[in-house]
């Protein structure tokens, strides 16, 4: 499913990230968000999401989140 359907505080696993050519997606990868990773949706604010990934927190925008398939 898409990240949009996640609830606040919900844990999820990244199933697939599309468009690996996209430099911003590559950056996301380097920041540690990649297939198989567990993360948690902490907060939403309009277009932006705050995720918790291991001991780091990432902000990503909704358009970018659309590339991410979760379960």
């Amino acid at each position, binding site marked *: 499913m898409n990240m949009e359907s996640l609830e606040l505080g919900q844990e999820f696993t990244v199933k697939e990230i599309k468009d*690996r*050519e996209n*430099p*911003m997606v*590559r*950056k*996301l*990868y*380097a*920041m*540690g968000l*990649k297939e198989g990773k567990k993360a948690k949706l*902490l*907060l939403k*604010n*309009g*277009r*932006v999401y*705050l995720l*918790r990934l*291991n*001991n*780091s*927190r*990432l*902000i*990503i*925008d909704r*358009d*970018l989140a659309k590339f991410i398939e979760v379960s």
Partner: protein
Amino acid sequence: MKKTIKVAIAGNPNVGKTTILNRIAGTSLKVGNWPGVTVEKKEAFVKFGEYEIHFVDLPGIYTLEPVSEDERIAVGFIEEEKPDVILNIIDTPNIERNLLLTTELLEFGLPTVIVLNMIDEANKLGIEVDDRRIEELLNVKAVKTIGRTGVGVRDILPAVVEAYEKNLIPKPVIYGQELERALDKVYERLSAKDFNKHQLIRMLLEEPVFSDIREELERETGKKAYDVVSDERYAFAHGLFAEVVKRKGVSAKDITDSIDRIVLHPYLGFVVFIGVIYLTFKFAFDFSSPFVDWIDGFINDFLAPVSYGALKALNFPEWFLRFFSEAVVGGVGFVLTFVPLIATLYFFITFLEMSGYIPRVAFLMDRFMHRIGLHGKSVIPLILGFGCNVPAIVATRTMESTRDKILVIMMIPFMSCPARLVVFAFFASIFFKDNPALVITFLYLLGIAVALLTGFLLRKTVYKGSMSHFVMELPPYRMPSLRSVITIVWVHIKDFLYRAGTLIFGASIAIWLLMNVPPGVKNISESVAGHVGRALVPVFEPIGIDNWKATTSLIPAFLAREIVISSMGTIYSAEQGSIQTEEGEEFSPSEALKKQVVAFGNAIKDAVSSVLTLSIVSLHVEEEEEDNLKSLIRKDFSPASAMSFMIFILIYTSCLGTFAVMVREIGKLRATLFLVYSFVSAWLTAFVVYNLMKLL
């Protein structure tokens, strides 16, 4: 002759690279708790044993595939400048992710020292890393540190020297068979043989001549060549992680998440934001204002008369005495009185930067910024603009899209900086005694409004295009240490004092000279300065600034806005005549000194007690004691024209430093067009407000 070791400090953003360098080298480079503090490479030299070690602090990077400009600077340095040693700093709590960059750095085959920083935070999370195992596996040196307190930092220099002396080349990074085979084929075809793995991979991925090898690799693996490389790197990093981490810890709920639930709340977050801004300014004003008054008294009632007396006793010529009281005391001294205001404001801005609050504003503000086609990250340089426009403009290098960068650079100069605040505080205390805080708030908001409008207009005309993505890491909250905050504040104060001694002093001298040519002019309005100022009056008359003293002050103010104040100080003190000891009056230095000491004690008392109230109490100037200078200036302005003057100073980019950095970042043409634009919008806004105020 000492031998030099060139050391590149590389690591993810916000892992403590600069903190550690400051510890090692005793520098005071800027540290902050958010990604993107260091955007240029910064250098420091340290002598150690028989070596001179040349450290280069690089902007933080997550990977060696750069997207934004600060990242390109870091990667470019490692690729092209061939450091002798790589100092790879790791945020231990996030070691899993950090090891990806480590893997990429190991590909260079250069002696490497790995610093496991933030051991304190790792311990709290129950994470334990085996540094000896890292050394063994990779043939590197590994050191554990707590950058903030300095624990372990001492071991870094010996490790660097050892890695250099023993030429500790890391064990080669070995990837999967298919990739290694492809790299071997690339290597075989090259005539020169001195390539490292990083270069080979780059050639494999990019060079057209190797497209056959690339295609073969893609056929064998069923993946894009780029994906093969990146998957292999991740796999290596992950293997390393599994080998060296003894305890992974538990990701317990921490305080940051609890704070964030309020601070980043879509509605509550704004209440907090406004509260933070209000308190910052309240404290900055109230705490500083007793000291501003004290310095004013100290200069005018003590320093000036004492040195004036001394100069007189030493038989300095009359013109020099005048120069001293007008240009030095009236001009430079005037500006110096504002040092406490600047210091306290920087104290709070720095505190916010170091606490980790600033990047949170980016998250909060995204909702508004995206209406003008920018995402929340662009708020960070804009907020930094309140500290000083110059570093704020440089900070746009973290932005991934050039369009966003240009847009934000054209908004930053409208963010009001402390130099402008000095001008506002001065005028507001003369012309808006009843509510100076309100006037200053209005001016700050006006600046923000002009910035947003500018962004909006540019977006609708020149810089259309779609929005770029927003990805950013949020650091945990960290309590800044007083020492580190004060170090940074001191850097800003030194900078201000330096400007006072150079630019501002120079401008005061120039103005003073122009007021005194042709030699022997009786009335300064007949001097060259007077003529130049009067020639400009027609331009400014429609916005209510119709006297030559004000217009003359605006010219040198292009160097820096505070100069408006020092120039006015010079001009008005000249008009007023010597401000020092009137004839006949007895001046006793020891008495005066005693008074100053008492006054200083009172200033501390007032500052502390004012902080305990909730409203802004300073700036409500006591009616009685207004010195002559202020009353002279009062004669030349009305509240409406004073407001118009402040607006002009606010909006017009009257700052050489800002202009210069704009030229560097966006080119001369755009910077010059922007300057014209800022002049025109300053004039128009001032015109509207001036006429509205006259109607009321």
